[in-house]
């Protein structure tokens, strides 16, 4: 009995910080400014208000930025899947560790360092302030993740089936398409989700490269922080708007993430 209580306690300690921050965020987003800046803090809003949300949507074209984020992250993830899954397969079957290292190094490079060169090129191509440019930049994030996870995942798959298919006269591509790919579905799911989420959460590219029409959500959220006015309520509301989609995604596909992440994360590189 005591052991069980202690265990429950441990779970509580482990889980509570995670949930508390989000609840506090929610609480901030539902209170007026005075309640938000008061001390001691008010946790449960006395008169909950949705005005922060309406304000955020009315003043900041959040709808447009939401759509932009969806296009940019969706586009970059899709391209990453198209090129990354076959590449992951190739790397796994060739045991091309040096290629993996290259991909890994790409993942290590700080995002900031890509900005200046890419900006210069986009300028030459007349792509600045376009969603295309943002999608291309976000490939920096998505392609390494997908390749890395897929290479790791394909390595865990048994080769016997593929080899049998090859001997039966199948081409490498058909073997990949009809034998390996279906088996790698969990890896694909996790690669998709992680690539999408990391791209969705990226702040710097959107902040520096995007313009009014092409801004993505994280940059837009930061922009809610206005000068000369404290606006914690709207800020928290904006933060919830940007975070909610990924949180929901996390909760719904929890199992796949656990499965795929461990397999991909461990075996690759």
């Amino acid at each position, binding site marked *: 009995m005591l052991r069980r209580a202690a265990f429950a306690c441990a779970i509580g300690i482990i889980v509570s910080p995670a949930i508390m921050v989000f609840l506090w965020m929610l609480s901030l987003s539902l209170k007026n400014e005075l309640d938000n*800046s008061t001390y001691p803090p008010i946790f449960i809003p006395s008169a909950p208000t949705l005005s922060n949300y309406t304000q955020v949507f009315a003043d900041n074209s959040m709808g447009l930025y939401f759509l932009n984020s969806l296009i940019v992250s969706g586009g970059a993830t899709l391209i990453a899947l198209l090129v990354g899954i076959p590449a992951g397969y190739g790397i796994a079957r060739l045991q091309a560790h040096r290629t993996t290292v290259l991909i890994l190094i790409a993942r290590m490079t700080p995002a900031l360092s890509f900005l200046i060169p890419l900006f210069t090129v986009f*300028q030459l191509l*007349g792509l*600045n302030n376009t969603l295309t440019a943002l999608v291309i930049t976000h490939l920096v994030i998505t392609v390494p993740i997908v390749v890395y996870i897929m290479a790791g995942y394909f390595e865990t798959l048994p080769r016997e089936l593929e080899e049998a298919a090859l001997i039966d006269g199948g081409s490498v591509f058909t073997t990949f398409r009809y034998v390996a790919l279906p088996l790698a579905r969990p890896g694909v799911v996790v690669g998709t989700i992680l690539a999408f989420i990391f791209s969705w959460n990226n702040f710097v590219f959107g902040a520096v490269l995007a*313009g009014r029409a092409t801004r993505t959500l994280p940059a837009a959220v930061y922009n809610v922080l206005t*000068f000369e006015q404290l606006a914690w309520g709207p800020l928290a509301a904006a933060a919830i708007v940007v975070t909610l989609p990924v949180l929901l995604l996390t909760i719904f596909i929890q199992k796949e993430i656990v499965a795929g992440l461990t397999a991909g994360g461990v075996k690759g590189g």
Partner: protein
Amino acid sequence: MTDRTNSTHPDALRRRLLQAGAGAAALGALPAGVPAAMAQAPFDWKRFKGEKIEVFLVKSPRGDLLTKYHKEFEDLTGITVGSEMVPEQQQRQKAVIEFNSGNPSFDVIALSYHVQKRQFAKNNWMSDLRPFLNDKSMTTPDLDFADFAKGGLFYAVETDGRVMSLPLNLDPWVVYWNKELFAAKNLAFPKTFAEMVDSAAKLNDPSKGVSGFVARGLKNANVPVWSSFLLGYGGSFIDANGKLLTDTPEAIEAGRMYQTLLAKSGPQGVAGFNWNESQSLFVQGKAAMWLDGIGFAQPLEDPAKSRIVGKVGYGVMPAGPKAQVSALFADGEGISAQSKKKGPAWFYLQWASNKANQTRMLQAAAGAPVRNSAYAAAQQSSDFKAPKEWVECMLKSASIAQPGLPVIAPVTEFRDVFGVALTNMINGADPAAELKKATAEFQPVLDKSEKA
């Protein structure tokens, strides 16, 4: 962040520095060649009907106000406005990137003179407005430079006579003070630096969570606070030969004062405070004095945001040993040199700085308009929200104003280097040593930028 100063051509730098040192007098005479627009011109607001312009503003009460009334401009002129507002830091960053691309996405841009003017001028990123001003068919009779505060025009006009922008807003630094806390200690608003330090110490009451004084301690943002003291001690930033004066006895005294006020009478953790932390402390009634730009009246008097509505005093910066000076910043709007819609953009500039908008700015306490007529007009209006004391403080401060930052291109780097020194002082470092170090570090950067 709300700190504005001016800048000019490199060759005029020295002269301008001297003028800046000479203070408000330097904000004087309009350069020859800038005509006040004549009244009888056949000017037509509808001239550019059907065109579309892009406007790049800073997210601030001023930006909000203009955005709110864009419809009015569209109805007046038939020009469609696409506008974007982003926070100051991002706006500055994006402006440089966009201009540098050679094809900025905007026609009109709002600029903070203290950071952007010299940078823009050096790179020839802005259009000279004189051709428009000289063309009666292009300039509304309402645009009367005689109505513009001299301080504002000083920022907008280059020493060679070019007019690169229209000023909108002045931002002298003032001391917000909590009347209730002062009354509780039987204190009056300080008249001198010495009184200020003394009052701050008396008002400081950590047991009640009340700080005697609060201002920015965060690096970069904090430099104007120190400037405010420096100017009162009779110091300045750079001498006629381009040599930094930031480790002179005056500068060190100002540093000491900064250190004393913030470290001894400031709140815990003030080294990380920007205007927003300072403001949130002040509106909660937890700080007796707050030194910052004048544009914060609106939130302080808003019952939804402030617990001290009606208790706020608006004090002019107390006198230093040598002078009584309010550190002045300003912003305005200009037209991109690469714009293909300069005519419509010019119409936007004229509209943005017209009397109605200037009056609105004051009414909403969204800033201190640059046009003198706005003050009279706003006070006559029935829905005038700004406290009378605020207006008086504004007018007095503007009359003793001097640029709050040096007129140099690498101003961000200046603020960063000296900002770090100031933050270190809050945390106990010796002001003389810190300023000496910062000066040595920044001098080469300055030399290089003036050579380039």
